[in-house]
């Protein structure tokens, strides 16, 4: 079943075309890596899906519902959640509270927190491996812990689709390995994923498919090994000279 569908999506800022004519669809249970060099439009695409930006034209469908003009909180309640490129915790609130916010508001409003909420939050903190920091203000966590917290908070909203923005950027090989396990655990919970991965250290290992963007255009789509051999993708990442050498 198709979960997310983008139909000829365009986004221009003033006269700059950030995304042009993107068609794409993601099925339930799938993990898709979104790759491309700096400025390719990856984060812009996330912001469109999450409702932070309105597309200039085109449509976004989620579970068959047109979400093109919905607000971020409405889209979250429908079941799309995200993490941020530079994580955005609520710094003066404890890690536990950060996750609780996601749990309490992720599916609309509930007036009073119940004990199950805390149990749930605790569980999520355990999954991402920072349960021992539950009472620490999020602003005092390390960068890697903040990314995990971002992920736990996003999961707390009980999404069907999770958008991860550069979740493993700058991670050491050990951390990347842990991130891979984490992604697989998330998938086991029945969540589909779209993963932005500029440096390809995560998506090559976990993705079913890759979507490659360059200068706002889709340049390739398909299984990881195919996309990575694609001429346009190589050119976008490595430049023309490399390609010429390949041709020789």
């Amino acid at each position, binding site marked *: 079943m198709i979960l997310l569908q983008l139909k000829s999506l365009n986004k221009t800022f003033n006269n700059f075309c950030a995304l042009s004519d993107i068609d794409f669809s993601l099925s339930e249970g799938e993990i898709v890596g979104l790759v491309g060099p700096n400025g390719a439009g990856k984060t812009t695409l996330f912001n469109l899906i999450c409702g932070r930006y309105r597309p200039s034209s085109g449509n976004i469908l989620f579970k068959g519902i047109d979400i093109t003009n919905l607000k971020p*909180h409405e889209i979250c309640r429908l079941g799309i959640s995200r993490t941020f490129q530079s994580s955005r915790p609520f710094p003066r609130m*404890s890690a536990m509270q950060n996750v609780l*916010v996601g749990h309490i508001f992720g599916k*609309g409003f509930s007036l009073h927190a119940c004990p199950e909420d805390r149990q749930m939050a605790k569980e999520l903190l355990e999954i991402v491996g920072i349960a021992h920091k539950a009472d620490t203000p999020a602003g005092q966590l390390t960068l890697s812990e903040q990314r995990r917290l971002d992920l736990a908070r996003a999961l707390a909203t009980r999404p069907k689709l999770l958008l991860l923005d550069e979740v493993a950027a700058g991670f050491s090989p050990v951390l990347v390995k842990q991130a891979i396990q984490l992604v697989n655990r998330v998938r086991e919970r029945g969540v589909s994923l779209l993963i932005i991965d500029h440096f390809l250290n995560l998506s090559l290992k976990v993705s079913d498919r890759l979507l490659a963007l360059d200068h706002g255009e889709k340049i390739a789509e398909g299984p990881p090994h195919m996309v990575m051999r694609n001429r346009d993708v190589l050119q976008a990442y490595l430049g023309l000279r490399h390609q010429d050498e390949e041709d020789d």
Partner: protein
Amino acid sequence: MIQSTSKKTVQYDDKWGITTDKTSLFLGLLALITLPLLVQTNDYILQVFTHALLLASLALAWNFLGISGSISLGHAAFFGVGAYGSALLSLEQGLSPWLTIPMAGLFATGLGLMVGLICLRLRGAYFALATLAFVEIPRVITDNWDALTRGSLGLVGISGLPTLRMGAWHVDFGSSITASYYLVFAYFVILLGLVTFVFRSNMGLALQAIREEEIAAEAVGIHVNRYRLLSLLMSAFFTGVSGACYAHLVRYIEPGLVYGLHFSAVPMIFAICGGRFTILGPAVAALVLYPVDQFIFHPLLPAGHEFLYGAVLILTMLFMPNGFWGRLRNA
């Protein structure tokens, strides 16, 4: 892999340092209840503390909005509308202050709705400046609508605080300073209870999340604009009620006074000095700073005693950005 950094972590409990708060709340309220018995012979002290309690309520009301991260420099608009609304209704229509005081709160809420729809799309300094400018609208109207408000002459002879009757038993809150003190005290306690409830509810959680990181807050399903508006409306309502209490307490108001910078600045100063991320901070600051100002600095410097507020504000922002109550609780 998780490096357990031995950095000194501030212990943060979910519920805003409850133990510190509980003890000091108990002692503070006890002191405030017994105050009239201790200073029986000295009306001046009691009068100062009545005003301190009213200003504490004002600071608490201000912090309904403050907790969501917005800084208002224009709460005098709500204060003035509340004061004039209640005073005029009781003067012209002869209504009981029991009725006019909450109605004044509703007038202020109406104004809050206007401010909200126009200004809440702004953030940070832009929002603060817009509220500062907004005060001028009700002030100019009050100042010039002579037929209704008697313009800059102000209103005199406003009825005092009302009488509470229960069968044969009654207590006239306007009759003595002690009675007025207890009425304002009761209002303060109710407001404090309400602030505590809201801050600890899920709404409080949402408002804090919005303050901390708005983009993340909306991304996890919080209807940011709705909560910001709601907090502004509550803030406006209780600021209006405080203004109405002020009118019936002092029994004389004029536009320059109730719409003055004083009533915009003072709740903000108390909230920031006390700690706008805490429940009690703003109230504690009002109950400490105002008496200090009146008892110590006013006799020393009759003309410029209010420099105290400016000085304390600057010092807190430099050395205790979370306010002294916020600092104490995490010490």
